[in-house]
């Protein structure tokens, strides 16, 4: 019984990935004409390479065969060729993907670390004016478009000079020790991750607040209250565990918003992640890069949701018994 839930989610995830691969393949088919035409016109790529690639991707074979071969090449690690960078896509993505993951993970941690106490505090002090003010602040933050928020952060960096205006590392530090490199990284990381966290914060706080309020209103918590259990214990030992169930599904959802928003913050604050690469590739119609990044982002999202499922499984005894 235990493994059933997890295996079902896993199969679901795999099916989704298969679907995504179909979709990505379909996208690739929409533009190959352009791609190879442009390639042929590029003097740096020999005609032999173009024909070789054409043959490799079997453009004259039936659709299903092409799909199989494409899928096979993906699994072998061959992710296509980037026209703009004149190199295979795989290595190009590696560093960028790592940077995006790093940024998103940090931002998620910050967001949840802020949202949970604020949400719990808001639920516990519901009705008092202090909680109303925080509610107002949250709603205001919600109406700020992420574009504006990131631009303001950039403005902050430009005007005050407290933070670098972009990049991930300062030049010239390759030989410095770990501590200095770490500090340097942190200061570069601060603005983008903080901005990303702020963007998702309001929705998180709202959901946590309402989940906690619901939990606090549930009969068994009220009964505990009647028994005279002290407030703090009530909040953390009784209400919070009940609230974690809806929150774990919120986690999956927040990963999705986070990934989408990361694109924008990376472009505006020049963080070397998948975002700027995708933008460039879209503008230059570097189709392989585009499709690979899309698939990668889907993988991240699906993985994030799976993680949420595992967390739910681990935290909610009801799922384990069912």
């Amino acid at each position, binding site marked *: 019984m235990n493994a059933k839930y997890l295996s079902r989610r896993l199969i679901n995830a795999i*099916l*989704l990935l298969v*679907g*995504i691969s179909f*979709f*990505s393949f379909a*996208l690739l088919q*929409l*533009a190959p004409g*352009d791609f190879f035409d442009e390639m042929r016109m590029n003097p740096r790529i020999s005609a032999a390479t173009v024909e070789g690639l054409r043959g490799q991707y079997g453009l004259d074979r039936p659709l299903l065969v092409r799909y199989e071969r494409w899928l096979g090449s993906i699994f072998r690690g061959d992710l296509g060729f980037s026209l703009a960078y004149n190199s295979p896509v795989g290595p190009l993505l590696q560093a960028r993907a790592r940077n995006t993951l790093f940024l998103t993970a940090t931002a998620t941690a910050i967001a949840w670390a802020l949202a949970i106490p604020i949400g719990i505090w808001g639920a516990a002090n519901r009705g008092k004016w202090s909680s109303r003010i925080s509610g107002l602040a949250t*709603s205001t933050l*919600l*109406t*700020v*478009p*992420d*574009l*504006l928020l990131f*631009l303001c952060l*950039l*403005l902050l960096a*430009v*005007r005050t000079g407290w933070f670098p*205006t972009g990049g991930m590392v300062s030049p010239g530090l390759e030989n410095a020790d770990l501590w200095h490199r770490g500090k340097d990284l942190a200061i570069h990381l601060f603005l983008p991750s903080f901005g990303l966290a702020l963007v998702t914060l309001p929705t998180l706080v709202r959901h946590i607040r309402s989940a906690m309020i619901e939990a606090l209103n549930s009969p068994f918590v009220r009964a505990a209250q009647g028994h005279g259990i002290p407030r703090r214990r009530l909040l953390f030992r009784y209400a919070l565990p009940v609230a974690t169930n809806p929150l774990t599904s919120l986690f999956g959802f927040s990963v*999705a*918003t986070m*990934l*989408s*928003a990361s*694109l*924008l913050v990376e*472009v*505006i604050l020049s963080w070397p992640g998948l975002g700027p690469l*995708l*933008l460039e*590739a*879209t*503008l230059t*119609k*570097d*189709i392989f890069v*585009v*499709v690979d*990044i*899309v698939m990668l*982002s*889907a993988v991240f*999202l*699906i993985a994030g*949701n799976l993680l949420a499922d595992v967390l739910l499984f681990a935290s909610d005894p009801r799922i384990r018994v069912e």
Partner: protein
Amino acid sequence: MKPRYKLRAAFILLAAVHAAVVFAGFLAPYGFANQDRELPFAPPTRLHFFDAHGRFHARPFVYRSQPDPSQPNAYINDTTQEYPVHFFVLGAAYRIAGILPAREHLFGVDEPGRILLFGSDAFGRDQFSRFLYGGQLSLLAGLLAAAISVTLGMFIGGLAGFYGGWIDEALMRGGDLFLALPWLYLLFAVRAALPLHVSQRQIFVLLVAVMGLIGWARPARLIRGVALSAKERNFVLAARGFGASNAYILRRHVLPQAYSVALTQITLLIPQYILAEVTLTFLGLGVGEPMPSWGSLLSSLQQYYVLASYWWMFLPALFLMPLFLAYYAAADALQERLKSVPL
């Protein structure tokens, strides 16, 4: 605030904004492509009532900005000539809603005076006028795309919930696919697969179509739920007892139950899509020059010197906030109403 008043206030604000945008030609003193090469990045013109000699003028006036000889990239006012603000002036020709030609503008100043309420951009174009015209594009894109998404969602969700079985499975799994991709990435991907060099109108249509087609999954899921519960209701059974066909029941009994949900979903989606259009155009993937969109108005902010020195370029972004606030407030109020409707 009571939901009823919230809804009313939000509705008034939204109506005002949309009216302003529809009548952009009338409210804007200049056309959106009207350049003044002598006034790049000029700050917003201040309205004066007292002139350099201390005299009071009942009619406000402006001074023409001139490049400051002592500092680069700065302006001072040329106080030798006052340009009074006139109302209901004749100016550049435009078309109301793209059809009726007209030349009246709400306000303006005589040449060579220039009234720049929101300042000017790199080409000396009046940001206020471009803001109003840009609103036409951004708001329309948001509205259309949201309408497409929710209509599609109603259709698909209704079918899935009503027929159930494998249709339901297939459709919902398809929806999961769309939900599994971060939407901005998906938008980029589809945009990349499309040819870059197409006409303005085609880009707009494609943009709206793509945004609309991507976002059906979430509304569909909600409407599926409504359809699922609606089809079990006794009044549906009674209609079957009269010999009603599936199509009739879907049309007359099941889908109308979903109208409230659909309305709430549209209200939530519109700001998201407006923001999506603004973001795309900001990054250079939307409708190009010279047709302005709020995104293109903001795109110059990507350059540091613009960002740091010319604060008025932020104004279009600031105006997005009350707009979104109105939409969110309306959505909130609608959600409240949804909960209290007796089923």
